[in-house]
């Protein structure tokens, strides 16, 4: 079985290009960037908020400051080095996940419910707001969990697009461009989350099963190519649970 994490990470990896500077978060975002770097994008630099530029973790790091982020990095500066490059507009792409995403690609990792009296108090922005505000374009990875997909997030931690479908004043870059789940690929070209592709064998209904609003379809909804043997072999170096069928 190829698990959900593998499907998400491999599909996201394909959205990253060789030669890019890529600001990544912990978890599936790191996995996606590592798959890209070790398949079609050997010239891509992984950047972590702790200061690593050109990181190449041997094991998937639990923290952006983990040993595997430091050891093997091409450059280990400080937070100001990497956030400075980000703020100066020199980071091409970011990969993030969050607790919630909405139809405008806004991400929430702060609270579920009211801000001062929340149902669930979560971790907050970290670098997510900064990356989403400043990076060239954003790739989002999300498990298929209807509670995570909402028409409007409870709190906009990391700004995507406004209610008018455009980037809010004060942000730079294209904002959210791709959203990958274990079931589908969504884009934001029209200013809202749009079904653009299906994971192998997945139907268009299943792709948005349980979502609380009607997600528009692109003119051509493509079927994504299944993970290749090379991609799975690379993935297995950081994600042990995967078996090939």
């Amino acid at each position, binding site marked *: 079985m190829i698990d959900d994490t593998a499907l998400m990470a491999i599909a996201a990896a394909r959205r990253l290009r060789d030669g890019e500077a890529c600001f990544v978060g*912990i*978890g599936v975002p790191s996995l996606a960037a590592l798959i890209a770097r070790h398949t079609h994008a050997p010239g891509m630099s992984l950047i972590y*908020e*702790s*200061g*690593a530029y050109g990181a190449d973790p041997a094991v998937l*790091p*639990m*923290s*952006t*400051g*983990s*040993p595997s*982020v*430091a*050891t093997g990095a091409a450059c*280990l500066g*400080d*937070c*100001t080095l990497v*956030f400075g490059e*980000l*703020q100066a507009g020199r980071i091409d792409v970011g990969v993030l996940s969050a607790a919630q995403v909405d139809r405008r690609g*806004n991400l929430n990792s*702060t609270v579920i419910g009211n*801000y001062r009296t*929340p149902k*669930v*108090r*979560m*971790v*907050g*922005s*970290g*670098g*997510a*707001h*900064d990356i*989403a*505000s*400043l990076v060239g374009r954003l790739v989002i990875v999300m498990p298929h969990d209807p509670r995570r997909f909402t028409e409007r997030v409870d*709190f*906009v*931690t*990391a*700004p995507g697009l406004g209610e008018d479908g455009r980037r*809010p*004043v*004060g*942000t*730079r870059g294209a904002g959210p461009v791709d959203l990958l789940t274990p079931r589908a690929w969504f884009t934001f070209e029209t200013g809202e989350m749009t079904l653009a592709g299906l994971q192998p064998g997945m139907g268009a209904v299943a792709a948005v099963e349980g979502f609380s609003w009607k997600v528009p379809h692109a003119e051509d909804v493509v079927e994504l190519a299944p993970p290749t043997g090379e991609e799975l072999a690379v993935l297995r170096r950081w994600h042990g649970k995967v078996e090939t069928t």
Partner: protein
Amino acid sequence: MRSIVASTKLKSLEHCAAEVADGDTVFVGGFGHAVPFALGHQLIRAGRRDLTICRSGADILADQLIAAGCVARVVFGWIGNPDIGLSHAFRRAVADESIDWEEWTNWSMVLRLQAAALGVPFLPGRVLLAGDTPVQLPDLKTVTCPYTGETLAAVPALQPDVAIVHAQRADEEGNVQMWGVVGDTAVGALAARRIVVSVEEIVDGEVIRASPNLTIIPAHRVAAVAVVPWGAHPSYVQGYYTRDDDHFRRYGDVSRTAEGTLAHLDRWVRGVDRERYLSMIDTGTLVDEATR
């Protein structure tokens, strides 16, 4: 030849922690790496109260200080247990309204500390201009660039009363060397009025002066240094020992309840001296993995 020691800053862990007074605003060093757990735990044992804790990415040390009742306010960019889950003590304190907080982002926290380190009242930033984070910062202002007319966030300086930092080594005078992930530790320390440090080892001044670009804090700024081997456990120190990931995982489980958290503090902090603490961790494996 031993170098001349002008004056010694070497103190006990207890003395270093006593540099932190009730009500102080405290910068906690360590961006995932070299988190000052031993100094933080000593604050818990000393019963410090009403602290304001400042950190961009605050991990389980902040959670423990909150659970122990040391903290009145948190100023942060992120708070949780990396890759594992929430800061449950913070979550509970928010729910029962026993804590105040001010929430930034990691880059704006770095800018705040950088402004204080540079001695300016604010730094312009290209963040906190969209989304809901700035909405919850009613005192945050914007600034119009006098050259380009652009609108930027005027990210205000944050000057902590005291910084607690753990690092690889220092000399007796208090020149502190750190390598590996520094994150925002150097800027946060230099932003503070006072700096107290724990280190894995004290080395001769000659060793420091042979590689002075490893020095992140010059002795002149350091109030006191304590030698505390394993003082960053369960985080890690590059070149000394690796991160005790399982410890973070276990804390993720026990900290789900207030009772579990207090039991953890009883076991690992309260009434536990360093010798006892070290006897409870698998130092051999953590050293081996670090040098593998």
